[in-house]
């Protein structure tokens, strides 16, 4: 299972990097969405995948009856998903604003903040 997931993560990262190298901001964001999913999966796998019981203590019991799954990576991934969602939402709105205000989503056409040196007036 780990090997399958590791390969999947690798493929996701490769696709994400390819997309993020694009000059088109929308493609970049699709790439970022994939990258953050790949990272979340990596974090999940890093906590070890075990076919064991959920980490819940039975009523009346003092501790776990058997081996239990590690709940921490799930908590971390959950946090990371929420954060990634927030960042992506902002990024999408910003892209929309870039299209509305600058008229482009291509990053090499965005030269407002750093205009190229003005040519000498003839």
């Amino acid at each position, binding site marked *: 299972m780990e090997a399958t997931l590791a390969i999947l993560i690798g493929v996701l990262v490769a696709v994400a990097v390819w997309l993020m190298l694009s000059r088109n901001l929308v493609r970049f964001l699709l790439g970022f969405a994939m990258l953050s999913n790949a990272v979340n999966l990596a974090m999940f796998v890093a906590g070890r995948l075990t076919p064991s019981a959920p980490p819940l203590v039975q009523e009346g019991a003092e501790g776990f009856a058997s081996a239990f799954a590690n709940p921490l990576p799930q908590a971390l991934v959950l946090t990371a998903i929420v*954060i990634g969602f927030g960042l992506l939402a902002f990024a999408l709105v910003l892209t929309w604003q870039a299209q509305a205000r600058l008229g482009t989503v291509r*990053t090499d056409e965005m030269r407002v903040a750093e205009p190229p040196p003005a040519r000498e007036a003839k």
Partner: protein
Amino acid sequence: MNGWYAALAALLPLAAAATTLIAHNRPRLQTALSLGFAAALLVDSALLFAAVWRDGIVVVQASGWAAPFGITLAVDTLGAVMTLIAAITGLACLAYATAEISEEDRRAFFHPLSHVLLAGVCGAFVTGDLFNLYVWFEVLLIASFGLLVIGGSKAQTDGAVKYLALNLVATSLFLLATGLIYGLTGTLNMADLALAVPRIENVGVLNAAAMMLLAAFGMKAAVFPLFFWLPASYHTPLVSVSAVFAGLLTKVGVYALIRVVTLIFTHDPAWTNTLLLWTSGLTMLTGVLGAAAQNEWRRILSFHIVSQIGYMVMGLALGTRLGLVGAVFYLVHHIVVKANLFLIAGVARHLVGSMELKRSGGLYVAAPWLAILFFIPAFSLAGFPPLSGFWAKYIVIKAALDERGFWIAAAALVTGLLTIYSMTKIWGEAFWKPHPDGAVAATEAPRAMVAPIAALAACTVVIGLFAQPFLAVAERAAAELTEPARYITAVLGARS
């Protein structure tokens, strides 16, 4: 009680964000709340610093979960100093903002976002947990996105796109590295990591994770070659926003670098330090050369942030106690000076109507008080004695010479020289040269703008003239950093 000071450093700004949001439709009340909470944060961080100075490292285990299972807040001298200086900068910039922002900017959630940003910054300084550090980074990041686009000009949208894109990459790298480190060690508590990392057998994965973290923090700190988002965006937002960014954001990256390099990744210092040393040299030189090519107040200053970051990383890279003393002293000096210079740029625009050097001038005649206020941080930045920058540079370069790092010392000195060039350029163009339109539009600025600048300039002068106490603080911070055993024992108890 000490623990509460640490927790409140992150909780007070969050409470401020919530209450200023509720008071959104009452402008005067919102401003009063915003400044009140910023002042409360300053008091709290001063008390925190006093507690750390008196009783040593302050540790809080959140909800009473023993380390390393719960979230630990751990504040050593470095963390306390950074929190204090962040609170000072935050208050100064919020006070300045009361005179700067329009009703429309205020309606765009300026105050709540500023406090969320402060919460992220202070949270990052007080936490003792790697994943928690990631969360605080995200808190400050998302707030900084919001602040960056207040006003909504074309240039801001453009700058924000670049700022966002590179920071998203850094964020993903940070998270991935955290995941890998957790997979290797089974812990995210920084003190526990310091114990677990030397026992890792799979050094390859550890090195990969370490490099990812260095790249992520390096991107936040804007070191060469990862700094391009900074000069692309820092000259676009409101002046008070760019001053907070310039003072605090990159320094959170430097702080995180110092923390992980001195505490966690101590297994191969020769390799890490060589890498950081090259980075710092190139950062200093590219930053200062980039600044020399610019002709706008804030664009010049933005490139100088990059070059100054190089000095701090250089202090860290030297790996000696004196180097760290220099890095810590530099951090404190730099935050005050840089935030102040951005605020002064804002006043200059208020008076002459532009931040383009070509379209400014005549300030020396029209506003000699501003000339004096500019002179102090500008020449402190360049390292003129007896201002604070002189001591900061002196310590770092002394540390380099002690280690026979002649090249890096030379790079630092050349950078200092070129910094003078940029500062005299601003001086000559904006202050001495007559204004192209004949006269300066205004000679007076609102008191709320001038007071924070004067206060920050006074800090610079005090640090310069009475450097010894500040040096003592930096020495103690460096001593704690070079002996991580103290930090580890404070967090985990004496069980190791």
